[in-house]
């Protein structure tokens, strides 16, 4: 494998927590501790190697960098103390800033989630899934929600999702119950975004 430093330097400088991967000793613990390991083509260890090998396209288009559910197990167990999760989120956000969407579904869900926070200062557990399903249009949305029925029913069984959440006036589209001081929150978020963009620039 050729080692081209250009992309590695780009990651160290422009990706949030990107420089942390310098101390990786390639032990492979992250690969086997991730609860989503069965769904990964490239484990974090492999991503770091691809970065060191200069494989920019493969890294930034890899769905694996957007798969993280923030469970923090890898960060806790990494024997070199690398905040694996922070690097993964940094890479995903950097890919988006470069006009690349590594994993379509996660990006869609993220945009709905974010719109909720930015628009109202809240995340509504009933509205987010509805908006997420309807993002591709009504027919596609119904299809998708039927496909996810099992998950929905399990969530209800575990009382994480309650039918009454979906009964008006609990549900209103667009959500009307903004937090107090939404303008201030938006100013903070804008500023954070600008700071992030400056680094990724």
């Amino acid at each position, binding site marked *: 494998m050729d080692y081209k430093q250009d992309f590695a330097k780009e990651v160290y400088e422009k990706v949030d927590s990107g420089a942390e991967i310098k101390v990786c*000793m*390639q*032990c*492979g*613990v992250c*690969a*086997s*501790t991730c609860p989503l*390991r069965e769904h990964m083509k490239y*484990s974090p*260890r*492999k991503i770091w190697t691809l970065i060191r090998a200069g494989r920019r396209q493969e890294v930034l288009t890899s769905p694996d960098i957007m798969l993280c559910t923030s469970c923090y197990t890898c960060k*806790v*167990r*990494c*024997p*070199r*103390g690398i905040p694996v999760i922070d690097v993964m989120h940094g890479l995903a956000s950097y890919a988006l800033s470069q006009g690349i969407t590594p994993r379509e579904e996660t990006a869609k869900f993220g945009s709905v989630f974010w719109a909720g926070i930015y628009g109202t200062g809240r995340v509504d557990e009933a509205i987010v899934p509805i908006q997420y399903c309807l993002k591709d249009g009504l027919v596609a949305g119904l299809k998708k929600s039927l496909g996810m029925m099992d998950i929905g029913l399990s969530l209800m069984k575990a009382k994480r999702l309650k039918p009454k959440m979906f009964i008006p006036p609990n549900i209103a589209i667009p959500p009307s119950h903004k937090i107090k001081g939404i303008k201030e929150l938006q100013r903070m978020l804008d500023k954070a975004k600008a700071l992030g963009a400056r680094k990724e620039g």
Partner: protein
Amino acid sequence: MSDSTSQTIVVVGGGITGLSAALESAEAGHKVVLVEKNPYLGGRVAQLHQYFPKLCPPYCGLEINFKRIRSNPRIAVHTLAEVTKIDGQAGDFTVTIKKSPRFVNDKCTACGKCAEAVSATIKNPFDYGLSEMKAAYLPHPLAVPPFYVIDPSIAGGPEGQKAFEACPYGAVDLGDLGGEETVKASAVVWAAGWTPYDPTKIEYYNFDSSPNIITNVMFERLAAANGPTGGQIQRPGDGAAPKNVAFVQCAGSRDENNMPFCSTVCCMASLKQTTYLAEKLPEADVTIYFIDIRAMDRNEDFYTKVKQNPKVKFVKSKIAMITPGEGGGLVLEGENTATGERFKANHDLVVLATGMQPNTALNAKIPFDVTYDDYGFAMQSTAGIVPAGTTRRPSEVVTCVQDGTSAALKAIQAGRR
């Protein structure tokens, strides 16, 4: 200021480092007080089956050292003793030695009648808890001094009385209170040794979930002729001969969450232990899971030889999870970083190659103003207090012997300045 004839050196620790320091000092003409916490000399070396790379039994070298001690009137040995206080300065220290009761005096002939009479048992620390023994015991068959010990848990009760009544020589002394004594010394060598890293702290290895997950020091006892199985390598869970053994390197070492440093000996220890299996259970499959194999200088030859054994497989992976499987077996998970494959592997015995934690980081801190590194190893910082062996850095036996000798020289010099 002492001159060379009246100089006394206190050596803390009767393991291989302390023995070397004590003997070299005494044979150079100085008085030595050797203080050992265990009821016997020899330390962790006495618990080994074989040394690497020569694969000779440690008792060979220990016997020579014990003979040198016996024939040297300048060495006073205190077992079951600890140094609790050091006052003064180089050339003029006052050292306080606290002795725990053995409840047996030097009339003991090691006949074993007390052990026969007693029925209470305790876990055998010499076998790292792999066996039980009577609460009146000889620490191990070749123990020096060769005296029995009555465990404090029975000394005050009817079981202790049984031991007392069984002794034909009047050697059992249930009124033993231990005691304290102070010694004037020109220098103190601190060779308090190490403890295997506690494997329960690596929670994802689930050490407590199966008796068939053991540590490398326990494996030494399984292979040793004076061990709990008489040298037969058996699974502690069911006594069966293991068919498929895993060695997990860096168990808690080179890990920011446990011990961030490399203990330098565990790779060679595991390579050595594969030769026990090759000799005793040649049909057994062996896998070594490693990050890097660190077999330095002449030990590289040993590594090359082990690699020639087709029964020994090397997999480049730090093990990320150990869980109990079927039939007392264990499932090991990791990512083979040479091939990129994630794997789940079944083994029937797992040996964790745990590293060396200095006792100065645990229960044997030097009672004097001494500087330690980030991991608790003592630095050469105070005149007259000489850290040596694994108190100073992780090291194998040969380095400890050299370091003990060098500590003797430093201690002698400290008294002459």
